[in-house]
C-alpha cells in the first residue's frame, strides 16, 4: 500500500502553480489562475485523490500526460507513460483492481484502442475515469477539435451490453468540477466513467479558481490486496455458463437503470418562451450560447438546452424544455450524432433539425443563427 498510503496523500494541494507569465505566481493562493484545459483536468484529478495515472502521448491531450509526469511523482503517486493506449488502459485495469483511484487520458484514435479494456472493466465492475479529448476523424483524421466520438462514448464504446456515464464539460471550470464528480460516480457505481472533452476545451486557457475539490475515499470490500486471512477474491468478466452471464448482465443493467434514474444532469439557458431550442454540449454549447444571444437580439426567441450527462441522456428534461417550442436544433461538431438522442427524447413532438461541422471545423455563431432561421421557417409550427 506504499503508493496509496504515502504521507502526502491526504494533504491535497489547495493552490496550484500557475504557468509562468500568467500573474498567478504572485500570490500563493490567487483568486483566479489561467489554466489550460488539459492541465486543469490533470490537477483536478490530483486534488480529487487520483492514485495512479497511465497515458500515452497523443495530440491534443499531451499536456495532460506531461502535467501528470511532473506532478504525480511529486505527490508520491503512480505514473507510467505506457507503450500504447492498449497498455495504458490495462495498467488502469490492474491498478483499479488493486483499489487505486485511476485516471487515464487520450484522444480519439487512442480511445478506440482502449475499447477492449473498457469493456472488460465494465464487465469486471472496475472504476476508472477516462478523459477523451476528441479530435477530428475518422482514422488518423486531424488534431482539430471534434465531437465525432459522441456515439462511441454514449452507446457503449467496446463490445457487449454495457454503458458508461459520460460527462461533458463546456468550460474549463466545469471540467474541474466534473473530474471530481466522475470519480464519485465511478466508485459509487463501480463503473468506468468518460469525461468527454474536445481539442478546444483542452487547449484553451481560461481563468479558474485554484480551489480544487478532494473526493472522499471509500474502502470497498472487493479490492485485491492478497487473501491473507480471508477467502481469495477474483475480479473478472468471464462467466461461461449462459445463465451465469445473463445474471451478471442483469446486475449491470440494474446499475445502469439506477444511474439513469439518479444521475442525469443538464443546464438550460433562455428557455422560457423559446420558439427554437438549441441542444448542444461542450464547445458547441459555447458557440450555441452566443448564437442564442444574437438570435434574441434579432427578434428570434431562442433558448439553449445543454446536456451535461450525455449518458444517461436527460431525455425527460429536454422534452419538458422543448414543450412550448416549434423547432429543436442540435448543434454539434459532427455529422449528426447527438441529434439521434435528441430525436429519441423528443419522440416526434417537435421537428428536430441538425447543424454540424466536421473534421476540426467549428460552427460560427452566425451560421448557427442561420440554421435556426431555416429551422424556424421550415417548421410548420413556427410559421403558423
Amino acid at each position: 500500500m506504499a503508493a496509496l498510503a504515502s504521507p502526502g496523500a491526504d494533504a491535497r494541494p489547495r493552490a496550484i502553480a500557475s504557468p509562468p507569465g500568467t500573474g498567478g505566481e504572485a500570490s500563493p493562493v490567487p483568486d483566479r489562475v489561467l489554466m489550460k484545459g488539459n492541465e486543469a483536468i490533470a490537477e483536478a484529478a490530483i486534488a480529487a485523490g487520483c492514485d495512479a495515472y497511465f497515458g500515452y502521448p497523443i495530440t491534443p491531450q499531451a499536456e495532460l500526460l506531461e502535467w501528470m509526469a511532473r506532478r504525480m511523482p511529486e505527490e508520491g503517486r503512480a505514473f507510467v507513460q505506457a507503450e500504447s493506449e492498449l497498455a495504458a488502459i490495462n495498467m488502469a485495469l490492474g491498478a483499479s483492481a488493486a483499489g487505486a483511484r485511476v485516471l487515464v487520458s487520450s484522444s480519439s484514435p487512442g480511445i478506440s484502442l482502449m475499447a477492449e479494456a473498457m469493456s472488460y472493466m465494465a464487465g469486471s465492475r472496475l472504476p476508472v475515469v477516462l478523459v477523451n479529448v476528441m479530435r477530428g476523424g475518422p482514422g488518423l483524421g486531424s488534431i482539430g477539435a471534434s465531437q465525432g466520438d459522441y456515439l462511441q462514448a454514449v452507446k457503449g464504446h467496446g463490445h457487449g451490453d454495457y454503458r458508461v456515464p459520460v460527462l461533458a464539460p463546456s468550460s474549463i471550470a466545469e471540467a474541474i468540477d466534473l473530474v471530481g464528480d466522475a470519480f464519485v460516480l465511478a466508485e459509487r457505481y463501480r463503473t468506468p466513467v468518460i469525461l468527454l472533452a474536445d481539442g478546444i476545451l483542452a487547449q484553451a486557457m481560461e481563468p479558474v479558481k485554484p480551489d480544487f475539490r478532494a473526493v472522499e475515499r471509500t474502502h470497498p470490500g472487493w479490492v485485491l490486496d492478497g487473501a491473507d486471512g480471508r477467502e481469495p477474491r477474483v475480479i473478472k468478466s468471464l462467466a461461461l455458463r449462459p445463465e451465469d452471464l445473463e445474471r451478471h448482465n442483469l446486475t449491470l443493467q440494474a446499475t445502469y437503470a439506477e444511474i439513469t434514474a439518479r444521475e442525469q444532469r443538464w443546464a438550460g439557458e433562455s428557455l422560457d418562451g423559446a420558439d427554437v431550442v438549441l441542444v448542444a454540449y461542450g464547445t458547441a454549447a459555447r458557440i450555441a450560447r452566443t448564437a442564442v444571444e444574437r438570435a434574441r437580439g434579432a427578434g428570434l426567441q431562442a433558448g439553449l438546452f445543454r446536456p451535461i450527462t450525455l449518458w444517461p441522456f436527460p431525455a425527460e428534461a429536454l422534452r419538458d424544455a422543448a414543450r412550448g417550442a416549434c423547432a429543436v436544433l442540435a448543434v454539434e461538431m459532427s455529422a449528426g450524432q447527438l441529434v439521434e438522442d435528441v430525436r429519441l427524447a423528443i419522440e416526434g413532438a417537435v421537428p428536430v433539425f441538425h447543424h454540424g461541422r466536421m473534421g476540426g471545423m467549428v460552427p460560427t455563431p452566425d451560421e448557427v443563427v442561420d440554421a435556426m432561421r431555416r429551422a424556424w421557417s421550415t417548421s410548420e409550427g413556427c410559421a403558423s
Partner: protein
Amino acid sequence: MSTARETGGATPGDATATEGRTIYRRPLLLSNPTSYCPGCGHGIVHRLVAEVLEEMDLGGETILVGSVGCSVFAYDYLRLDSVESPHGRAAAVATGVKRVRPDRIVFTYQGDGDLAAIGTAEIVHAAARGERFTTIFVNNGIYGMTGGQMAPTTLAGQRTTSSPLGRDTATTGYPLPVTEMLSLLPGVAYAARVSVADPGLVGRAKAAIRRAFEVQQDGHGFGIVEVLSTCPVGWGMTPSAAMEWLRTEVMAVYPVGTYVDRAKGIAVTMPAPAVKPSKTAEA
C-alpha cells in the same frame, strides 16, 4: 474444496505412510482438481507455483494476474486474489497492480499464444521498464483452447490445425525465442527456461520459479520463467509421447537453463538462432 486447509492433512487418495505421516499432499494454495486435458503440463506448473508460494509463505500477499487461453481458469485452482486480463495484456495489468501495491507479490500466468503473439508489446515493455513482478510463461507451442492452431512458438515443420502441412518457415517464420530476447534487456533481473518433461526437470523448474519470486521480493526487476510444456491433444499425441517429444524435439529448439540472474552475476546474451527444421509432429 478446502479439506486440506481445514485438516492440514492429506486429501483422499494421497499416499500416506503407515504412521499417518504425510508424504505427499495437495498444496494448500491449490484447490480444485483442474479441468485440463490428460497429460497437459498446466497441472504440473500450477502445482509448482502453489508449492513455492506456500513454502515461501506468500499466499496471503500475492496477486495473480490471469490471462486468456487454456489457463484462463487459473484463478479457480490457485487460491489467490486474482484479476482477469484481456488477451495478451497481463503484463500491463500486472504493471498497474504492482505500481499501486509495491509491497505485494504480483505475477502473471500466461501461455505462449497470450504472451508471445498478441501480448508481445506488453511483455517486452514491462521487461524493459524493469517492472518488479514475475511472469510464469507456459510455452506449449500451440493455441490449445481454440483448437490447436499454430503459435509464434510452434516448431518449424510442426503440424497444427492452422499449419496443416507443417509450419513453413518461408511464410510463417521461426519459433520465437522469448526468453533469449528478453534476456537482452537490462530491466530483466531474472530469466530462465525450464521444462516439465521428466521429474528431474520438474525439480529444476520449481527451483527456478522459487528463485523468480525471491528476485521479486528483493525488488531487483522483472523476472520470467518460461516453462516448456505439453499439449497432447493439440499435438495429436498420447500424454507419454507428448512428454517424449517435449524432451527431445522441443528442448532441442528451446534450450533450458538460467539466462539471467543479475544478483548472481549471470547474464547470457542471446545466442545465434539454431535454424534446425524439426520433425513434423506425427499423429
